[in-house]
């Protein structure tokens, strides 16, 4: 074999390997989606959304309390993460060149990389241990901490995309910096910021680890913030590692609902980004 044909062969093998690796990565994706949909759809019915968990042996149990619980903790998390995330994002983009902005950016990326279970331990230390009580609030705190860096970084990046002339125009008209940001820059980046929030929601709605010992779990229905609440993810975990067939079925149904939530959030975020890009092109 000549040198040239050997080189060509090597090149073809490499191209083949790259294409193959895409396929290899897509196989587990297809498998996971296939099993979640096919197993989940069998046990997903109205009862699942309406009923409370039933004792082992009784059929027809659902996860109504866990669905409400997931809404509660993600809602609480957003309540506290959205303002902090957006305002710190505003700081990082408005004062982008300053040393403190770089420090804050580094802190946000660091926070983003902290394992979710560690955030759970932290939330346990400051919101569960002092009150000797698992609570929805503690769960919301843990999820909020995870949302902050995502929202802050997307806000920052999107505000930097807003044309400088818009801000300068506002300043030239005599607006204060705050006025320019809140009346001109933020509104024009709003779809993007909402995207960031939705993306953050998509990520934390599927989180289990930080809730295990903050929101804990609850067999009963509650909307009290200082009580432990069940969440979809923790419920799927408990049911998955249980020895009961019926609970396994429900775990698959829970997983299907989770994937559905995450997908809808991701698609919403994508749609909003498209619109934003369209706006910029105009």
């Amino acid at each position: 074999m000549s040198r040239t044909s050997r080189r060509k062969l090597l090149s073809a093998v490499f191209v083949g390997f790259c294409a193959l690796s895409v396929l290899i990565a897509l196989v587990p994706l297809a498998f996971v989606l296939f099993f979640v949909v096919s197993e989940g759809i069998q046990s997903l019915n109205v009862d699942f959304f309406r009923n409370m968990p039933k004792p082992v042996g009784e059929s027809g149990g659902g996860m109504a309390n866990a669905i409400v619980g997931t809404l509660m903790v993600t809602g609480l998390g957003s309540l506290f993460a959205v303002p902090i995330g957006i305002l710190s994002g505003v700081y990082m983009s408005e004062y982008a060149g300053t040393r403190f902005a770089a420090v804050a950016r580094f802190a946000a990326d660091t926070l983003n990389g902290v394992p979710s279970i560690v955030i759970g331990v932290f939330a346990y230390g400051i919101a569960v241990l002092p009150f000797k009580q698992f609570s929805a609030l503690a769960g919301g705190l843990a999820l909020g901490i995870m949302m902050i860096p995502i929202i802050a970084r997307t806000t920052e990046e999107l505000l930097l995309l807003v044309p400088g002339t818009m801000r300068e125009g506002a300043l030239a008209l005599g607006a204060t910096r705050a006025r320019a940001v809140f009346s001109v820059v933020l509104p024009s980046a709003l779809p993007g910021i909402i995207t960031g929030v939705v993306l953050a929601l998509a990520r934390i709605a599927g989180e289990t680890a930080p809730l295990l010992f903050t929101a804990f779990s609850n067999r009963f229905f509650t909307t009290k913030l200082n009580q432990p609440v069940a969440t979809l993810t923790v419920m799927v975990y408990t049911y998955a590692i249980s020895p009961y067939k019926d609970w396994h079925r429900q775990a698959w149904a829970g997983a299907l609902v989770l994937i559905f939530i995450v997908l809808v959030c991701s698609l919403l975020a994508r749609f909003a980004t498209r619109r934003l890009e369209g706006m910029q092109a105009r």
Partner: protein
Amino acid sequence: MTAPVPGRKKASRGLVATDLGFRLGTGLFATMLVALVVAIGFELSRQSMLTIEKFGLNFWRTEVWDPVAGQFGALPFIWGTLYSSILALIISTPIALGIAVFISELCPDWLKQPLVFLTELLAAIPSIVYGLWGIFVLVPAVRAFESSLPAVLRQLPLFSGPPVGVGMLSAALILAVMVVPFSSSVAREVLKSVPGAQREGAYALGATRFEAIRAALFYARTGIVGAVMLGFGRALGETMAVTMVIGSTPKVSLSLFAPQDTMAGVLASQFTEADTELYLSALVEIGLVLFIITLIVNSMSRLLIWSMARSERSSTPVVAAEPVEVTA
């Protein structure tokens, strides 16, 4: 010049004051980001003081973890975390790089967006769903594979032990799947920042596709290493999926078939059972060390990616300057 009008001076001072207020106000929120990171480190250290003082470094050298007998050694967990993450990295790195190269260099334009979307979807699936799938689909498959392995190979320490399915191999496989989208998306960004002239130059010299891409990969090596390390950081802290398939058995073993445990895994499975202060403190110390390790790995990977981006920026004018010289 004219003397400043008193009214205007007052107005501009007001302007400066509100601007300062705005800066301090938003700055306060930015400070919270820094404060949170510091607070996590502080709180975890505070809660683990008991074991830090009692066991010192021996905590990380002891192999026995027996909470009932009051014996706490965290060596099996740090071993399990590092072993599973490194195995996952060995499996995922070639695949992640292959995907990055395929999407950014090889595939037709119409295929790019769908492929990017699908790999992102891989990252969007919650860990708990991977875990559920792992328990009911992957573990039985791994068990079948393990029992089908010829007896000769089973003699090796790498494959010793009964073929139970749950264990290091399942954990590493599931971790690899979860890490691929992270490394590949960063590697893709890094490859995008390699100037086109690099490849064009290689092709002009008669390079094959592979040789041109190898040159681009070599040019981007710092960023590529950063991308792989970012994936490593993710793998270290991954909790639910690993906990559900690794077997939760604190043991130091080379065997891929052996049920083991990780730092994140022991926190997830035992934290609510911690009935003594010492037990709780030992678990929090594991969390503290996990926090520190991921902090170091993530900072290093970010530094690498940043330095890549910076050298890229500083080298651009040089590349742009060359053709000008030629035309002159």
